[in-house]
């Protein structure tokens, strides 16, 4: 492992250990109550104690996040493709995409919950998370599909390329860096959406990590809430790492961003 990489992983790890140590010490030193700020050791104990229910909730949250992300990806690219075909369609529809984006998801949550029925809270959460994650992919893919080189477009004209050939062989590859950027943003937003939507629309029928945090808060089981919070952070980091890996792999041969240092 290179010096560079040791620093890259080692330094944040060192910070984590130092922070944990300080945290543990200050909780005991100042005798802070466990329902205000539990020590790391108490959080770990709570995590082990309710490991089963925490894992169930984690699975629910991961499932909602991944499905919402995939739906956002499909709808985002589909609409971007449509927009790239015609400026008129884009002008007609884009303001509504923006409207959907800027309307706070907590504000539409009750409506969605009414429409899908309170017994289907998980479906409502899924829809809301999809709405949150949709826009970055749409906006970035639309930009990318339009950013293919003009001379390459002329080359496709010269050989009488069909609309489909142009889309598959020119516009999609040219848009790939933008789509991957959109995916990295949307991956995180899908998780945020899943959590916020569960806060807003959750009920006994949707039991992800957000629900665990709510319940733990009501019961003053703050250590369990912290454990759930840690799991949420772990999910977010994993999503980001996986998408970064995908990006690096997909662009390694050609994009400037993936050029190895000289």
């Amino acid at each position, binding site marked *: 492992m290179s010096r560079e990489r040791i620093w890259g992983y080692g330094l944040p790890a060192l910070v984590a250990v130092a922070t944990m140590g300080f945290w543990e010490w200050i909780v005991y030193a100042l005798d802070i109550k466990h329902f205000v700020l539990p020590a790391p050791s108490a959080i770990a104990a709570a995590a082990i104690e309710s490991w089963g229910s925490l894992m169930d909730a984690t699975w629910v949250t991961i499932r909602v996040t991944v499905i919402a992300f995939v739906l956002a990806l499909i709808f985002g690219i589909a609409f971007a493709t449509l927009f790239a075909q015609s400026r008129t369609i884009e002008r007609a529809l884009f303001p509504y995409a923006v409207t959907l984006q800027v309307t706070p998801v907590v504000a539409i949550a009750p409506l969605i919950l009414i429409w899908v029925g309170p017994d289907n809270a998980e479906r409502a959460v899924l829809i809301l998370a999809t709405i949150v994650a949709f826009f970055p992919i749409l906006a970035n893919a639309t930009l990318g599909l339009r950013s293919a080189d003009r001379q390459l477009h002329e*080359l496709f004209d*010269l050989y*009488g390329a069909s609309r489909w*050939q142009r889309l598959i*062989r020119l516009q999609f590859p040219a848009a*790939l860096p933008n789509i991957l950027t959109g995916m990295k943003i949307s991956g995180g937003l899908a998780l945020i959406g899943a959590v916020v939507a569960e806060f807003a629309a959750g009920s006994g029928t949707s039991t992800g990590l957000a629900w665990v945090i709510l319940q733990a808060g009501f019961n003053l089981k703050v250590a369990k809430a912290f454990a759930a919070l840690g799991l949420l952070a772990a999910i977010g980091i994993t999503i980001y790492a996986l998408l970064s890996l995908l990006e690096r792999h997909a662009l390694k*041969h*050609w*994009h400037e961003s993936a050029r190895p240092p000289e």
Partner: protein
Amino acid sequence: MLLSFDNVTKTFPNGTLALDRVNLSIASGEFVSLVGPSGCGKSTALRLIAGLIEPSAGKVAWTHAKPSVGFVFQDAALMPWATVAKNVRLPLELTRKDDAEADRRVADTLELVGLTKFANAYPRELSGGMRMRVSIARALATDASVLLMDEPFAALDELTRDRLNDELRELWAVKNLTIVFVTHSVYESVYLSSRVIAMSQRPGRVIADIAMTEPKTRTRDFRMTTAYGERCRDVRSALQRELATP
């Protein structure tokens, strides 16, 4: 006669008059250079020949059916996400050639430009001169008999440019091509072509049409000859006369 411009005028949607009643004809096997100041409509003329744009008035007519035409753009215009071989293969795929045929032509054209060893390289791994060779191979992959080139070597360093000039002369002779070459360099146009057409500033018109079929084979010594110097002077003075008139 291969093709002719018959009173061709081109006005762009923004009102720019790029070409004004241009008449010219190009014979099969000619190496024609269009030379003139920036924005004189020489690229527009090239795109009219390629059929990428239509004239606003007048006619661009091919004497026989339009042959297979290759186009070489200013900055190579390669797909950065595809290997050299896949870039050269693109026109064959767009025109739906079968796989075996496409494989053969990719191999042939890469050999022609001396890039066989780089078939699996990506464009960013190549020098500017090599990228331009890929672009030429791509234009020739469909067995094009007409090669249209839009200031292809403008961004290259002088030594690379000289070498590519020689390679292009050789390709032209070996493959019996008709080449229309747009450049703003008087020297390049005289060195390369069998005929130089000088164009005025916008709106573009033909202001001089100078044939120079001899010598057939040109080496770097040709640049030292009196004939070369005189032709350069002729083209240059035609362009300067034009600049002097308000």
